[in-house]
């Protein structure tokens, strides 16, 4: 596969422009993180110095879990719109008539969903830690939030969960005929990896750096596999007519 960086860049620039002018997407990108920020912020102020250590640990775990929902939900909303939105507006066919390869189109759309999602996730994470350092009445709260296993988990899981969510969202979007259905299905289908994260953060599985790295590797493999699946599914003929091309059935599709 040969990627043309010029074409890839053109898609990324277009995606960013379109996203920034889409009020629904911008609204999702702002409202969801704010919603997920409310509970941890309230807890930071609420937890008194005399609460047991187990409560503080549970708070830290649930906060990380909540913050890791953001890199799943935000890119799901963006990527689920990516193909079916183009089809609804009639912009998909002109795009497919250009020399653009499907990998360039997919990666361009993925980057445009990935960058803001991960940036928002890290920003929220930093905000919670800074607030805990500044305002928590119990110093143990801030300490619990900066445990090495949690930090490694957050930094590794956020982009990898976002990657999973993006490819699932694009896959759903490629097969859907309605934006809202695609966004609902995409979000639902993106959630399963969060279950493992939940088991770690809620300490059903004992959190450790090794466990976080191991699960991150599993997520990385899942992301790569999902990208390949989406790329193979992304057939021009199916997207335009609803039926699969003879080329893909027997050999492969045009680039």
């Amino acid at each position: 596969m040969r990627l043309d960086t010029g074409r890839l860049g053109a898609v990324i620039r277009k995606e960013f422009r379109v996203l920034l002018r889409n009020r629904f997407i911008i609204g999702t990108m702002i409202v969801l993180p704010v919603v997920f920020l409310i509970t941890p912020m309230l807890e930071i102020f609420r937890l008194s110095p005399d609460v047991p250590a187990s409560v503080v640990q549970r708070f830290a775990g649930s906060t990380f879990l909540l913050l890791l929902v953001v890199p799943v939900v935000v890119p799901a909303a963006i990527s689920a719109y990516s193909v079916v939105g183009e089809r609804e507006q009639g912009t998909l066919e002109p795009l497919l008539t250009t020399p653009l390869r499907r990998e360039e189109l997919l990666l361009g759309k993925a980057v445009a969903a990935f960058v803001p999602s991960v940036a928002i996730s890290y920003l929220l994470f930093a905000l919670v830690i800074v607030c805990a350092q500044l305002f928590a009445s119990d110093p143990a709260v801030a300490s619990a939030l900066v445990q090495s296993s949690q930090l490694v988990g957050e930094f590794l899981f956020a982009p990898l969960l976002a990657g999973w969510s993006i490819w699932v969202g694009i896959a759903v979007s490629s097969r859907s005929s309605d934006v809202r259905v695609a966004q609902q299905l995409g979000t639902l289908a993106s959630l399963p990896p969060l279950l493992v994260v939940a088991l770690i953060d809620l300490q059903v599985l004992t959190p450790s750096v090794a466990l976080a790295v191991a699960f991150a590797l599993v997520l990385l493999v899942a992301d790569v596999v999902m990208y390949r699946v989406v790329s193979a599914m992304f057939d021009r003929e199916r997207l335009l007519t609803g039926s699969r091309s003879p080329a893909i059935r027997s050999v492969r599709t045009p680039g």
Partner: protein
Amino acid sequence: MASPAAGPPALVVDHLTKRFGERTAFEDVSFTIAPGEVFGFLGPNGAGKTTTVRTLGTLIAPTSGTAVVAGIPLTPDNGTEIRQRISVMPENPGLYLRLTVIENLNLFAGLYGLHDPRPRIDRALEAVNLGPRGRDLCGSLSKGLRQRVGLARALLSDPEIMFLDEPTSGLDPVAAREVHELISDLRQRGVTVFLTTHRLEEAERLCDRVAILNTRLRSVGRTEELRESLFSRSLTVETAAPLEAPEGVFSPTSGVEGWQSRDATHYVLNVGDPRAAAPAVTRALVAAGADVISIAEARHSLEDVYLELIDEDPEAAAR
């Protein structure tokens, strides 16, 4: 009208067929288009015109048959290279309505790998008379203006072949005329144009040759050739009053092969050569004491040709 240039064909289609399961979109279609030719592709709804354009534009894989597009064989491996040399304007121009005209064109300039695209964008906008509207959001443009932006986008990459799918669909007469002028300009510039249209007068006016498709190709040729192959040449005669004995006037007249009356004072004469027969018919009418209002060669429009071909097609009747 500039003649198509000599040289290797711009497009060669050989026994191309596309089926979606049991349904045949088009079947056994063969034709060749010369470089610089404006080729009209006509047919009723569901005849397979758009599917043919999508197939030649590498969006859809043919079920069987072969094609060479802009000198490159139509195969899965050659999709990107073919798309680099052609441009396709679908019936719906499909613009990003939240982007400006220039942002839309910039995107496509990037996708075609054009370096320093601004001069090209300016030229394309000038060509479609949209120079001052470059910074307008596409969502704020009328349908006619959006169609023009679609044409500007198709012009950007200086394609060897432009596929225009119903470019005047839904446009008012003024906007349609502007698109016609643009297509005429493209012809002058030597661009090969593959034009699908429902508007027969548009095809007749703009196209060097036309093909009439109704799942299968019904006919291909110059409009004049199609007329001659389908209709015998004829003269129409109008007299002030009904002729008393038209058989006695027309049958003995040199050059007249047959005749029929359309109504009491109008007659249609089948002739081999209208220019040679007209003086003899005039003399015969005058000799018979008829007051002649007019004698003219009957002109069959492309619409007549189209209807004749489609009407004789049992598949069309079933549609």
